[in-house]
């Protein structure tokens, strides 16, 4: 009987992930706990282990696809049948552990303890890169042909960078991954000089590598000075650390500070707070800021853009989904509020309350955290006078909000007590100039000071 293997619960209420890699191919014999997929969820990359023993009859997912919990992943010929076929032709199959009776949901091992995939496995098992092999495989191998043409060699060959064999050899010798080198020749062909230039750039800026894992620096032995405790990083922490390193090392960022006089806004908030509460939200500064920023992004489109450095292009986004940083006991999560420009402040306050609630109750789905063009982070609830947030790359700007306080402000010849809200805007200086940032933040501050501006020009 074939067994269907569906994506199990991945813990922490993650509902889906991007399929990075299928680690097995049709015809493979898999053992329980053997990693079969590499899945990237919003917060971590996990290896999904097989719950069963058997021979893979069909793989229903493709690399690059989004896979949801419960989705059919593999059909496995399990138990007696798979084993019998296996024994007939392969001596090594008899060494394999006996079959598990059927699909069992196994607990996800933490990636830290998941067995590493042997580097030796892929090539011999999956076929040779290059063109002819898979076609020849069919020519030569009758058994696979008797099953289904191409099934044994269905794995896609690795695509190789457009470089001559001598250039590829040079790259290997220099320790450069040829697939990371951009070629200057026609059609992106890579020359010796390109490889050398790439190697040079790697040496001169070892940290600035996109998507790199945490740079591991040598650590002193802390126990020399006292007791320590080691803890595995949680997935959220690890992902946050990786993402922050990436953003910090890729984006040349500057922070612009400003203050908004929110005395009037505070009165309005108090006066209309009830309405939001009735609707199920809370009329917070963040909710108002969401609407203000959405309008500002329409006026200053480069703040909702991204840089495609590989193609020297700027991508302007015509939608205004805005992320809001939420502090949870698991760490920092950033749910995204869709189409903030098309919703009124009460609606936004309701959505924001829901999103925060979901984040704290581990109910956020992957989709809830993607697609943002700008991020707002408000630490005012805790305190502080100012801070420099890190741009949430590939976004190009982030607005930080601190705690409003009463300050003496010189108005019309006298000092008056005004409620001032400290704002900070970190931005990607590659795309945004200081003057633009000052203008953007001033616009935001003025919109908060004079709420009438929103319907007027926003």
């Amino acid at each position: 009987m074939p067994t269907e293997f569906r994506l199990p619960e991945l813990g922490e209420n993650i509902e889906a992930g991007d399929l990075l890699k299928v680690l097995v191919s049709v015809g493979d014999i898999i053992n329980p706990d053997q990693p079969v997929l590499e899945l990237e969820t919003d917060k971590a990359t996990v290896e999904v282990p097989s719950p069963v023993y058997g021979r893979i009859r069909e793989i229903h997912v493709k690399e690059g696809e989004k896979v949801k919990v419960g989705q059919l992943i593999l059909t496995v010929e399990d138990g007696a049948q798979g084993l019998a076929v296996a024994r007939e032709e392969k001596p090594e199959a008899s060494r394999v552990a006996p079959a598990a009776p059927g699909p069992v949901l196994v607990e996800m091992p933490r990636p830290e303890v998941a067995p590493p995939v042997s580097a030796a496995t892929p090539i011999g098992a999956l076929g040779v890169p290059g063109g002819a092999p898979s076609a020849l495989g069919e020519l030569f191998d009758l058994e696979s042909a008797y099953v289904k043409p191409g099934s044994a060699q269905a794995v896609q060959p690795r695509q190789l960078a457009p470089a001559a064999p001598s250039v590829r050899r040079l790259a290997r010798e220099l320790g450069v991954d040829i697939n990371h080198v951009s070629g200057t020749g026609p059609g992106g062909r890579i020359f010796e000089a390109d490889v050398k230039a790439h190697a040079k750039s790697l040496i001169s800026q070892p940290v600035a590598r996109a998507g790199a894992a945490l740079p591991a620096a040598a650590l002193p032995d802390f126990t020399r000075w006292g007791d320590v405790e080691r803890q595995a990083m949680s997935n959220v922490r690890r992902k946050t650390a990786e993402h922050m390193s990436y953003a910090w090392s890729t984006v040349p960022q500057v922070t612009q500070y400003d203050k908004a006089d929110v005395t009037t806004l505070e009165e309005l908030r108090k006066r209309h707070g009830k309405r939001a509460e009735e609707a199920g939200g809370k009329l917070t500064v963040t909710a108002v800021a969401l609407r203000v920023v959405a309008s500002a992004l329409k006026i200053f489109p480069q703040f909702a853009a991204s840089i495609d450095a590989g193609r020297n292009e700027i991508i302007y986004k015509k939608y205004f989904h805005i992320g809001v940083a939420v502090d949870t006991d698991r760490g920092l999560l950033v749910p995204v509020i869709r189409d903030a420009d098309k919703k009124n402040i009460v609606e936004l306050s309701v959505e924001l309350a829901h999103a925060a609630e979901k984040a704290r109750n581990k109910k956020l789905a992957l989709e809830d955290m993607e697609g943002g063009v700008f991020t707002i982070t408000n630490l005012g609830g805790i305190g502080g006078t100012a801070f420099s947030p890190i741009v949430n790359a590939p976004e190009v700007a982030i607005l930080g909000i601190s705690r409003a306080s009463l300050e003496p402000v010189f108005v019309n010849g006298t000092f008056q007590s005004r409620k001032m809200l400290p704002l900070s805007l970190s931005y990607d200086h590659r795309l945004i100039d200081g003057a633009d940032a000052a203008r953007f933040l001033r616009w935001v501050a003025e919109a908060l000071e004079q709420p009438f501006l929103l319907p007027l020009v926003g």
Partner: protein
Amino acid sequence: MSEEPNHTQLAVIGGGPGGYAAAFLAADLGLQVVLIDPELNPGGVCLYRGCIPSKALLHVAKVLTESREATRWGIEFPEPKVTLEKLRAWKEGVVQRLTGGLGQLSKQRRVRYLRGEASFVDARNLKIKKPGGSEEQLGFHNTIVATGSRPAAVPGISLASPRILDSTTALEIQDIPKTMLVVGGGYIGLELGTVYATLGTQVSVVEMMPGLLPGVDRDLVTPLAKRLEGLFRSVMLNTKVGEMQEQKDGVRVKFVGHELAAPEGVFEKVLIAVGRKPNAQVPGLEKTKVELDQRGFIKVDLQRRTTEPSVFAVGDVAGEPMLAHKATHEGRVAVEAIAGHKVAFEPRAIPAVVYTDPEIAWCGLTEEQAKQEKRPVKVVRFPWAASGRALTLDRPDGVTKLIIDPETESVLGVGVTGSGAGELIAEGVLAVEMAASAMDIALSIHPHPTLSETVMEAAEVFFGNATDLYRPKK
């Protein structure tokens, strides 16, 4: 009894194109090498029982065919007389000259050629059983397993009879049977079928897939399939062999399939050519950490190192495609890795050649593969009917095609069907390996009149301006 235990830096098990290439390069790099094989000289299946003898016979077949076709050009020969002993002797002579040459090359390079069968004692030692029955223990720092492959049997059908041939016995040409059934429409079956049919045997081919040469682009196979219709008595597609029984006058074969031309037939000889199996059952291999994959190949990494760090594997035993030139390249990569160089087996193109008449050759990405991978490609073809050289050879039954990346315009794959396609494909390999663009090929002057021009003109087709082919503008 065993001799004094000795030790070498590299022991190569198997003297085929993977093994001897590895051993020779290792010696050139200054390593101390022992090459182990049961035959008198290096050569392996390729030289003794494969590529070389079959190509010798196919050359003879080609001459026979041309002498018959010469009537069209006003030249008539009497029906040729075939003397099998002489034919066999010539073929053997070719094999001996080549293998003897390899023996010489081993000596010149100071590769110690050890005749015998190797088995593993552990991950650092081999035991070699020599032809006289004596044994020798050999310690090694690294070893390369290059034990090749053997003909596969039809699953479920085993019949031991001198009437049943495999590629090895078929190449011996014991006789020219009146009738022969070739089981398997892959390249081995078609090549040997061509030899026998040309020598006068009525050849029938049975293939379970819907077309000959499964996996090869159909437009490349079509010209061959058409010609084989005339050469072979019948080609049964979508058909399997159900049962075989030996009787007085031959082998009675029952066929299984939906649209059978005949439910059974009697054949004087039956050639089983259904593929090859890796020779991974080296005795004692289980005493090492070497692992096999689910198809019985030894698992290796990009450097061809197995899961046992001191053991490498190359060639047929280490995975598809089972081709001599792939083995040779792997052998050289493994040796360079052993010598401490940073190398990897990462070809962009491995050429394959089917030596039928016409020949079929291809390398890199095939159209079929691109389809399976849903990879956008632009395919351009140049029909040989438009080639002057092809017409002077009276062989317009050919096509040259390029598979091109529509974005970068670089050549990802090349396919050729036609007389001498096997020689033409080398340009394709160079183009794919160098990441040449269609423009590079179109702008390289090709000699006229040659078949190689078809490669250039196919590239010109990509730009819509081939000299010898008019395509109306869309």
